[in-house]
């Protein structure tokens, strides 16, 4: 399969996930927390993927779980890219004291390991799903600021920026119309790779039980099934679906990310991948 084909398939898979997440109530006969049948029923006509130990329908949990998983994956990635682009462009463009100050602050923040910090912060503030995704977004933006800044530093010296300044364009105009389109490829690559990274991290966080278990997402489902010995009892329909769902979206995002990188990153493009 060629890269183009892989990219198309990945985008299609991603769209399917989004449609399922948005139209969740259309697909599901029961709510995610509703006890709708006997516990531990195998897949059948009533329950497409069977039921868990409480008698909740696994298919419904899976579909509603997509909402939460996608929410924290993409919200946090969007926020992180937004912050790193804005801050990176502003400090790269103005330079001088602002740049020096923010860069030193980032130097201080970079060595702090993100995952443990996230664990400590969630343990301390016990936030909800939305707050955690905001937190992940803010923490995940730090690395991106450096990348965008280094791009903008060289862009700010180019003649088209100088030309724009000479005809009296305002700083905001230059930043939004001349610099932003030029860093857009990097931003796109960063967004896709970041959303994959943060989505998997979010599922991991809920797998180790970081947020309250009343919100059902894929990580919680895997955790529930694994800790109650779902697989050991031969209850494959309980453990496999959420895992496969995570793998599907993570693979699709990874493939899109690499295809983008290949397209936009001249360094990788030198020797054809």
């Amino acid at each position, binding site marked *: 399969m060629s890269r183009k084909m892989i990219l198309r398939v990945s985008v299609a898979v991603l769209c399917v996930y989004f449609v399922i997440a948005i139209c969740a109530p259309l697909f599901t006969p029961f709510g995610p927390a509703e006890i709708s049948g006997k516990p531990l029923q195998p897949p059948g006509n009533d329950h497409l993927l069977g039921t868990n130990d409480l008698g909740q329908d696994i298919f419904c949990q899976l579909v509603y779980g997509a909402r939460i998983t996608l929410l924290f994956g993409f919200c946090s990635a969007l926020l992180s890219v937004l912050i790193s682009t804005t801050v990176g462009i502003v400090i790269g463009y103005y330079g001088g004291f602002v740049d020096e100050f923010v860069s030193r602050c980032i130097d201080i923040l970079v060595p702090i390991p993100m995952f443990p910090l996230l664990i400590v912060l969630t*343990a301390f503030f016990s936030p909800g799903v939305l707050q955690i995704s905001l937190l992940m977004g803010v923490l995940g933006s730090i690395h991106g600021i450096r990348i965008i800044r280094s791009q903008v530093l060289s862009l700010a010296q180019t003649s088209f920026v100088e030309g724009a300044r000479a005809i009296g364009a305002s700083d905001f105009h230059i930043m939004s119309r001349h610099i932003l389109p030029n860093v857009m490829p990097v931003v796109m690559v960063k967004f896709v790779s970041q959303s994959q990274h943060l989505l*998997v991290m979010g599922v991991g966080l809920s797998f180790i039980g970081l947020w309250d278990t009343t919100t059902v997402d894929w990580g919680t489902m895997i955790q529930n099934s694994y800790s109650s010995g779902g697989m050991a009892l031969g209850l494959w329909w309980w453990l496999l679906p959420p895992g496969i769902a995570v*793998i599907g979206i993570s693979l699709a995002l990874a493939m899109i990310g690499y295809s983008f990188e290949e397209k936009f990153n001249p360094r990788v493009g030198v020797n054809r991948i």
Partner: protein
Amino acid sequence: MPGDYITNYLLSLTNHLPKEAVDQFYHQFGLDLPLTEQYVLYLSNIMQGEWGYSYAYSVPVFSLIMEKLSWSLILLLPATVLGILIGTVLGAWSGWKSGGKKDLAVFNLMIVIRAIPEFWWAIMAVVVFAFYLKWFPLGGYTSIDILYTGLSIPDVLYHAVLPVSLMTFFIATGNYYVMRNSMISVIGEEYITTARAKGLDERGILWNHALKNALLPMITITTFQFAAIIMGNVFIETVFSWPGVGLLTTEALRLRDLPLLEGIFLLDTLFSITAMLAADVLCSLIDPRIRMGEDV
């Protein structure tokens, strides 16, 4: 995840919360002070080497972490060394052959491996190799025989095989990317073209020109990976119930044992700062193009 340690603990014992007990606990650990005051107290304690007491284990945090760290090291030391070696060799080979069919196959395989969450690999490994094939134990660090025979090293190693191989696998894929990218950018350099134009044989170019330069970014990555050892591997240790720092973290999290969590996090941060410093110094020692201080 709401609640703090004492309310959780008391509620698991009885249904009502004795107010005096909660107040006493707060007072004993200084939790009734304002946050700023608590922070100043924490800082001054850290400066004096007092890392605080764990709520759940009632022992000093530092010695507890150190004890668990030695267990984590059993897994992570071999995994890190092996992972770095395998990843570097595979990445170098793949980068040198970049664009070829074999390189593409390995590269795509690595993307797929990387995209699947770590804990999922771990669960699947337990299910397949331990549960269905029964080649390895399901988890833990020793078998039940320890009660009669005492802790035996072969037994512990036997329990460590599966987690170590999984971690090796992961560390290797991470290194593979860095090494491959580095190799690709090095063989695009002009000095490689020059070497070819001089008529050097390919093997000589690979060993003397390409590999040496491509290995430079690996220094930074390697020091970082050694720093990451301290955190243990939360997912793999949790899935395999290996009594290391990673499992300690999830336990502390479950019990809301804040001093313990803070201790683990602090140690982790200190390690990564040291690793950054070490990476900078090493890079400037090895690469003459990077200089420290004087002429920046």
